[in-house]
Structures are given as structure tokens and as C-alpha cells.
């Protein structure tokens, strides 16, 4: 039993090791990435992708694992981004206390908003979370305390950031930080979704009424899922602000949450690595499809084709619709289908040992 279990971990470990070694490779992937793998530009793009892999997975804890459709996940990410940026830049705190404060704020906000919004279900829940996130967005834009920088956003004052995370040459450290974040989020989500509480989440997703009939109160379990997912999102926000070096209003909007939903469904909801893959691929496309338009082939096309092809969100939107229509399990289901097929085929073929006997 022991060896197969280790084998189950093997693909993940290989991917992480490869990703960790990536800054030492000078491999060039033209078109997909801005430069060779070890160039700061590429590492920055990949770091953002990794942060979003973690963020998408944190959203999947709600959407895919517990069946809660929230439209306010951007709020907790934004808390991480803005509280860290404000503590570092306005109050000149050190990095660790700033990150700690951000996590604390994320936890408290999530507990409060979750406690209120989980009193309603389904679409009403989605709307309440949307409304709270909108309130957060309004607060950031209107900036009553003059700390967020409003529409302009807030550039990070690097004075208090450790030297290892500053400068173009240190982009690789930020990249490793993002990779570490993705791994941590994965491990935490794996831990909680395979715990007894995680099984109750799955039961709530499948049939909440039945959970209640079996004598469990679903409310505290949903609240735990909400707080865990939101706090993980806050953690992603803390790393994100370091990677991109500033906070902007875009991360507070409802559209931002919608893009998280798109990522999760694209990758495969309820599958841990699927959601991460979705986040990674979405951000890679979002950041790089725009530059595709500059490539000779597209620029030479007639306007009817060139205009849509030069809009990353148009392509992502269309891709998303296609996935929802024809591949309901997302990218992850491609592998799963193959696996189940293999599993189904297995008994038909005589096993090697069986032949020997």
C-alpha cells in the first residue's frame, strides 16, 4: 500500500521540482513567454500565474468542494493586497507584521461576512457576497481614510521589504515565493478537504438537506469553508502585492471574482490540481495573448479577425463558453476520462500475473 501512495504524490512532486529548478534554465519558448525561462520578465509572468493558481484553488474550496457560489472572493484577496501595501507603504511596518495584520484582517472580515451571508442560500448568498465585495470596492475607490490611493492604486514602498525581494535580479526569489505559496495553498487545501470536515463539505455540495436530516448543522461547516477559503485568498493577496509591487483597484471588482470562477471551471472544479491549472493557464493566456496580437501573423489579418484575436478576454470568454458546453469537467476531466477508461478496460485484459498462474 505504501508505495502506490507515494506514487500518487510523484507527479506533483516532479512538477514542483521542475518549477523550482526553472530559474536556472535558459530555455526559450517563443510566443508563449516574453523571454528565456531565466529572464526576469518570464519569471514575473510565471510568478503571477502561480499566485493565481493558489487563488483559484482557494476559490474552489467554496465553489467546487462545498458548492457555495460566492461572487465576493475578490474582497479577501483585496484585503491581503491592500492591507499589506498600506502597512508597508503608509505606516512603514516591516514585512512580517504587515503580512500578519493582513491575514488577521482577512480572517476577521471573512468570519463577519460569512456569518451574515451564509444565513441565506443559493443565489441570495451569491448576491450578498457580491454586495459586500462591492462595498469593499467602493471603500477602496472612494478612499475615505486617504490610504488606498483611490483609482490610482498604491505603489509599494520597498523600503521595508527585505532586500531579497527587491530589484529585477531578485525576481527569481519572488518566483520561488509564489511557488512556495502555491505549494502551501495546495497542501492546506488537501489537508482540509480530506479531513472529516471536508467530507461534510462534499456532502453539503451534493445535498444540503440530507446533511441536515442526518443530524448535522450545515451552517458551521459552511462558515469554516468560507473562512478557510477567504484566508487563503488573503495569503495569496499578500504574495501578489510583493510580486507585482503595488495594489490596484482591479483586484477589488466583481469582474475579478468572475474571472476566478472562469479559472476554476476552465481547469476543473472540485479537482485540486485542476483548479490550479485553470488559474495558471488563464493568467498565462491573459498576460500573453495580448502580445500575440503583435506577432506578424495576427497583425496581417483583416480587421474582422484581427480585432477579436487581439482581445485576450474575448478569446478567454469564447474558450470558457466552449469548455462549459463541451467539457463540463474542465481541463482536469481530460485526464480523468482517460484514467476511468483505463480503469474500465483493466479487467477486460488479462493481468500479467494471471497469465503466469
Amino acid at each position, binding site marked *: 500500500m505504501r508505495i502506490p501512495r507515494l506514487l500518487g504524490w510523484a507527479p506533483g512532486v516532479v512538477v514542483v521540482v521542475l518549477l523550482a529548478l526553472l530559474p536556472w534554465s535558459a530555455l526559450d519558448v517563443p510566443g508563449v513567454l516574453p523571454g528565456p525561462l531565466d529572464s526576469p520578465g518570464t519569471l514575473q509572468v510565471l510568478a503571477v500565474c502561480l499566485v493565481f493558481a493558489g487563488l483559484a484553488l482557494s476559490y474552489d474550496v467554496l465553489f467546487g468542494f462545498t458548492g457555495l457560489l460566492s461572487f465576493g472572493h475578490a474582497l479577501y484577496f483585496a484585503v491581503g493586497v491592500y492591507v499589506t501595501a498600506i502597512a508597508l507603504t503608509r505606516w512603514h511596518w516591516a514585512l512580517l507584521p504587515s503580512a500578519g495584520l493582513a491575514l488577521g484582517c482577512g480572517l476577521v472580515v471573512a468570519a463577519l461576512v460569512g456569518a451574515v451571508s451564509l444565513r441565506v442560500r443559493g443565489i441570495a448568498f451569491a448576491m450578498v457576497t457580491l454586495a459586500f465585495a462591492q462595498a469593499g470596492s467602493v471603500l477602496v475607490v472612494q478612499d475615505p481614510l486617504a490610504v488606498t490611493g483611490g483609482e490610482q492604486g498604491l505603489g509599494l514602498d520597498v523600503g521595508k521589504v527585505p532586500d531579497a525581494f527587491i530589484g529585477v535580479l531578485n525576481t527569481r526569489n519572488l518566483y520561488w515565493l509564489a511557488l512556495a505559496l502555491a505549494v502551501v495553498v495546495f497542501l492546506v487545501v488537501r489537508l482540509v478537504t480530506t479531513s472529516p470536515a471536508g467530507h461534510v463539505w462534499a456532502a453539503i455540495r451534493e445535498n444540503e438537506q440530507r446533511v441536515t436530516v442526518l443530524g448535522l448543522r450545515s451552517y458551521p461547516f459552511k462558515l469554516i469553508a468560507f473562512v478557510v477559503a477567504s484566508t487563503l485568498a488573503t495569503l495569496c493577496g499578500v504574495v501578489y502585492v510583493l510580486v507585482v509591487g503595488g495594489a490596484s483597484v482591479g483586484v477589488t471588482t466583481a469582474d475579478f471574482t468572475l474571472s476566478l470562477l472562469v479559472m476554476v471551471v476552465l481547469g476543473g472544479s472540485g479537482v485540486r490540481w485542476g483548479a490550479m491549472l485553470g488559474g495558471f493557464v488563464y493568467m498565462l493566456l491573459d498576460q500573453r495573448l495580448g502580445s500575440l496580437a503583435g506577432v506578424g501573423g495576427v497583425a496581417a489579418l483583416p480587421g474582422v479577425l484581427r480585432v477579436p484575436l487581439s482581445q485576450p478576454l474575448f478569446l478567454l470568454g469564447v474558450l470558457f*463558453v466552449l469548455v462549459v*458546453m463541451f467539457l463540463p469537467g474542465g481541463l482536469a476531466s481530460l485526464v480523468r476520462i482517460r484514467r476511468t477508461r483505463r480503469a474500465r478496460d483493466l479487467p477486460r485484459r488479462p493481468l500479467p500475473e494471471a497469465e503466469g498462474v
Partner: protein
Amino acid sequence: MSTVLVLAVTGLGLGALYFLIASGLSLIFGLMHVLNFAHGALLAVGAYLGWWVASHLDVAAGLRLLVAAAVGAVTAAALAALLELGLVRRLYQREIAQVLVTVGVGLALVALLQGIWGSDPKTYPVPHWMVETTTVGGAAIPHGRLVTIAVGLVVLGLFVLFLRRTRFGLVVRAGVENRAMVTALGIDVRRAFTLVFALGGAAAGLAGALAGAYFGSVTPQLGSSLLIYAFIVVVIGGLGSVTGSAIAAVLVGLLQQFTNYYAASGIGDLSVVLLLAVVLLVRPQGLLGRPV
């Protein structure tokens, strides 16, 4: 006093816009349990096509706005019907997937608008007389606001007439109550789906033209910013109730204007959120919704 009057009229105008968007959303949700996230994009497409046609016409500004509104309503209705026939219908009984599809279409349409016309605001053709004001009780009221309110009232009247007096309206109302029963009685409720989508789209397209006149310009993101408040209006009013949407739209529009003016800019938006939270906690089904 005059300030109160101006604020009230402005709030009602905003409420009329919210109502135009929310009425379609509410009917679609009531009948099909689909939150149409493409609704904001339909509004923006209507506004842009109306603007584009109108800017190529060499006629009086008033007529231009009329043409823009008509073109906007028709294109948005056609697009909405296409969306229903081409995508939403194929995902029958997969309600989450239906919502997701509208999210994708919304993303793609807004990006397309941005690709074609750029993200800078486009000045909307507003006839001069709409900007002029009439003094009522010491308050200078712009005519444009009154037009918006009037259109909102007319659309409300038409929706109520359609729902109460026509056969299709009967099917829609019955479908909101109990879709399975309507189908069991041998009525093809899917035709009502397409119709409701098209009607909602038409109202959204009209709202696009009016929003263009109201704000003076249109941007690709016009729809998504209005859509959030329209969602709030739909939920406060009660999902599936057009009259509820109208009442909630007026409440939200007025509340937003008055608090934005008397408290501080931005507080109005926050108080709307608060209103939603309070309504949902006290009365989860909304003002006129059926108990869930």
C-alpha cells in the same frame, strides 16, 4: 426644498435605469432560474450599436437619440434571443452551467466592444432640449431625467400589460409559479424562455441608450457597473417579480442619490449594500418574492 426635488428626480431617473435592467433579469431568473450575467454586456452592445448608427445619420439630435434607442433595443433583443437559442437552451437542466455560459458571453462581448471601439468613453448624441431645464418649485430639473423616468414607467406599464393581458404573459406567469406543471399541461414553455430573454434584452438595450443620454457617454464597462446594482434591485424586489423590481429600483435609486449627497460620495453605494443585507436577513425572498 429645491435640492430635495432635484435629488428626488435624479434618484428616480437612476431608479428607472435600474428598473429597465432589473425587470428583464428578474423575469429570466423567475422563469428559468438563470442569472443572466451577459445582461450588462447586452446593454453595452445596444448602447454602442445605437451610438454607431446614430453618429452616421445626419438628422436632428432628437431623432438621432430615438434611432439609437430603437437600434439598441432591437440588437440587444436579437442578441439575447440568440444567446438563449444557441447556448442557454442547450444546457437545459444544468443551471450553474447556464449561468457560467452567460458569464463567458458577457466577457467576450465586452472585450469585443473594447477591441472595435477602444476603451475611451464615446460621447452619446444627446439632444439639446434634454439638457435644458424646467424650473419646478424652485428646482431646475433637466428634461433628460424626466424622459428617463417616463420611459421607465412606460416599460413597467407594458410589462404589466404583457404579463396580465396576453396569452404569452399568462404562460410566463404560470412558468414562474411552476414550470413543471406548465410543461405537463402541454405548453411549450421553451418558447416563453426565448421570448423572455428577448424582452429582457430589449429593455436592456433601451436602458443602454438611456444610460448613454443620462451619463452623456458610453464605455464598454457601462453595463457591468450598472449590472451589479440591477442584481441588488432584483434581489431586494424579489426574484421573478417585475413590480417588486420597480419598487426596489425606486428605493435603491433614491437612497443612493440622497445618501451620496447628504452623507458623502460613496456612502450611497454602501447604504445600498446595507439595504440589501437588511432586506435579505429580514425577508430572504425579497419585497414581493414568493417565500423560498
